[in-house]
């Protein structure tokens, strides 16, 4: 094996590399900037008290690390899914390589190696871009007098941490995403039949069982947290466990949960042929459509969760507190915290959106023969565009809808389990900040339309003759 030329193994394509690079760069830039902001804030807060910097900084760093973890988690999911989508689309090529004697493990190793390279380049680029952005921002902030002119240090050893985490997680994500390579049999190159989607052939009962168990256990813990929260703020610990368990279950079982939701949304979009074909496509590829959407579900869930928790907390306090000035103070504090948290989590949602857009683009690219056939049979360019738009809308609406629902549930459970006893017991209905809902819906629309611009142009320009000729 060792003597074989490595050029034989090219399972990952150019199409997804750009997106993976962008995701790695975004995550790394986010991590670096967040740590730098933390350091600047610590310097500002502690002022001249040099001894105090350490304590403030370590507290802020803890918070920063939490949000970096979320961003890295989301970007890992996005990268894993991008790699898996590319591999699913290249089943035939991989099978051909296997047929002529390349081993599956070699093929997979090549994918992971590429992941490592993409992760390293992306992380470094992101770190440099982030630092430049931060340096510029700092100059402006000092010049305009927003913050005092102190001795800020932007470059510190800690910055290596996010960069390293992004490199390792991209590498790991490529490795995980490429496990399907192992299931490609050389026979798949021989079959003259339509491409059988690789994922459909795989049933994973163990994974399904684990997902269901996690969700049930998580919901029980959440309920326990809410009940215990009536008498003690330690209810939140139960709630936290419940949230982590159930959410992990949801992510693991997304291929069971997303398809029915997508179907529901698809029905709502109408019954004309482009919509029907779009719906059929996401139905027949449950793995792919849930992969494309789960990152966005996570992002929206987190944003909504914090917002609903804050608003519900505010409402509980309003019921419990008599003094209007205390109420106003609480309200202001909640407002500021939520704004900061939304921006921090919003960044993860952005990374997830990159993943979804890329997934749609890849899916169109991989279906050019099918689109060519439809064009030959009399599908107009406009109908092709409508089909892709319907698919994009379906995914965005499903992801944001589920995210909102989950976020409201989690946010309410968090507020109840943490503050239920403080507010004097009793359950309040979840308070939903409607501005957030409107913003999410607007964002969904922009995302859904924006995601289709490039793929739709490419799809419409597919010539039926060339698409059908390409073997």
């Amino acid at each position, binding site marked *: 094996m060792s003597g074989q030329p490595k050029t034989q193994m090219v399972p990952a394509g150019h199409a997804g590399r750009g997106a993976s690079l962008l995701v790695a760069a975004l995550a790394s830039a986010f991590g670096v900037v967040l740590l730098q902001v933390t350091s600047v804030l610590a310097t500002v807060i502690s002022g001249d008290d040099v001894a105090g910097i350490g304590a403030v900084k370590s507290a802020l760093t803890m918070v920063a690390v939490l949000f970096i973890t979320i961003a890295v988690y989301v970007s890992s999911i996005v990268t894993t899914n991008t790699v898996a989508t590319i591999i699913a689309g290249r089943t035939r090529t991989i099978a051909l390589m296997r047929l002529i004697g390349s081993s599956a493990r070699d093929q997979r190793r090549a994918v992971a190696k590429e992941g490592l390279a993409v992760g390293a380049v992306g992380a470094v680029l992101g770190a440099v871009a982030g630092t430049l952005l931060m340096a510029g921002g700092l100059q402006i902030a000092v010049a305009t007098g927003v913050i005092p002119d102190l001795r800020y240090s932007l470059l510190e050893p800690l910055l290596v941490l996010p960069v390293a985490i992004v490199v390792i997680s991209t590498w790991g994500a490529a490795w995980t995403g490429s496990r399907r390579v192992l299931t490609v049999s050389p026979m798949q190159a021989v079959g*003259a*039949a*339509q491409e059988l*989607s690789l994922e459909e052939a795989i049933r994973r009962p163990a994974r399904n069982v684990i997902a269901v168990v996690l969700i049930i256990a998580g919901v029980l813990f959440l309920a326990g947290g809410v009940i215990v929260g009536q008498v003690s703020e330690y209810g939140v610990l139960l709630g936290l466990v419940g949230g982590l368990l159930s959410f992990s279950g949801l992510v693991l079982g997304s291929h069971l949960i997303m398809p029915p939701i997508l179907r529901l949304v698809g029905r709502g979009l109408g019954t004309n042929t482009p919509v*029907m074909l779009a719906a059929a496509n996401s139905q027949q590829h449950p793995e792919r459509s849930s992969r494309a959407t789960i990152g966005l579900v996570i992002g929206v869930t987190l944003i909504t969760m914090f917002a609903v928790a804050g608003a519900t907390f505010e409402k509980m306090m309003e019921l419990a507190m008599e003094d209007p000035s205390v109420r106003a103070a609480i309200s202001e504090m909640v407002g500021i915290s939520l704004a900061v948290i939304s921006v921090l989590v919003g960044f993860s949602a952005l990374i997830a959106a990159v993943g979804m857009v890329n997934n749609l683009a890849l899916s169109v690219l991989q279906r050019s023969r099918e689109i060519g056939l439809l*064009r030959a*049979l*009399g599908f107009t*360019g406009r*109908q092709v565009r409508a089909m892709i738009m319907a698919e994009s809308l379906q995914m965005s609406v499903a992801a944001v809808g589920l995210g909102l629902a989950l976020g409201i549930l989690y946010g309410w459970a968090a507020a109840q389990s943490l503050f239920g006893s403080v507010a004097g017991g009793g359950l309040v209905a979840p308070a939903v900040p409607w501005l957030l809902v409107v913003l999410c819906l607007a964002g969904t629309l922009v995302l859904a339309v924006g995601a289709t611009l490039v793929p739709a142009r490419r799809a419409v320009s597919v010539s039926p003759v060339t698409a059908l000729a390409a073997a």
Partner: protein
Amino acid sequence: METTPATPGLAARVTALTKTYGSATTAVTALDDVSIGIRRGQFTAIMGPSGSGKSTLMHIMAGLDTASSGQAWLGDTEISGLGDADLTVLRRRRVGFIFQAFNLVPTLDIRGNILLPFALDGRRPSSTETGWIEQLIDSLGLVDRLTHRPHELSGGQQQRVAIARALATRPELVFADEPTGNLDSRSGREVLALLKAASTGYGQSIAMVTHDPIAASYADRILFLADGRLVEDRERSSAEEISRIMLGMEQRA
């Protein structure tokens, strides 16, 4: 040729058709001044060696591709001047297609694939059309396959679905490009017999591109292309005769 009862009208024709690919220096002439008429109600085979321009001719006649010069008509409609939108509607309503492979939309089941031309046109089949489709499904032996997906069918079964789809709207002309190219000889013969039956049974006009002399022997008429030109025009012939003509063409080349 136009109006005598013995010669039926033309389902499609091309005059002085030329198609070149590439720039002036690297130009490939795929079709060189071709004039052909496809007779209504007949099963016509288009034969010729690889690269002789068969697929190119079919694509232009079907409104999938445009010619460099010359005219193409489908029935009484000149299609050489039509834009993409008009050609799209024309393909949808007036012609049927059977390709060598990848004929079916993988995400739709068999019934969905057969009904696709109606769906693309945004309508449901009328009750007469439904009756016709049921009859097609029955005669093509697809009754208990309707809810399957394409990849669950053999290559021959997939081609039969493509035939059902192509015949479902009773188009003016069905184009088939190597419809048996991917099939073993038995399934290939079945497919050819079905096409032949559609032509003799109810006068479906069919134009079929093929390499295979046996496939061409099912046709009422055989047109031979070589180097982008029409070189022979034969009435129904046996596979042996067709082979001889092909062999002669290859030796001359």
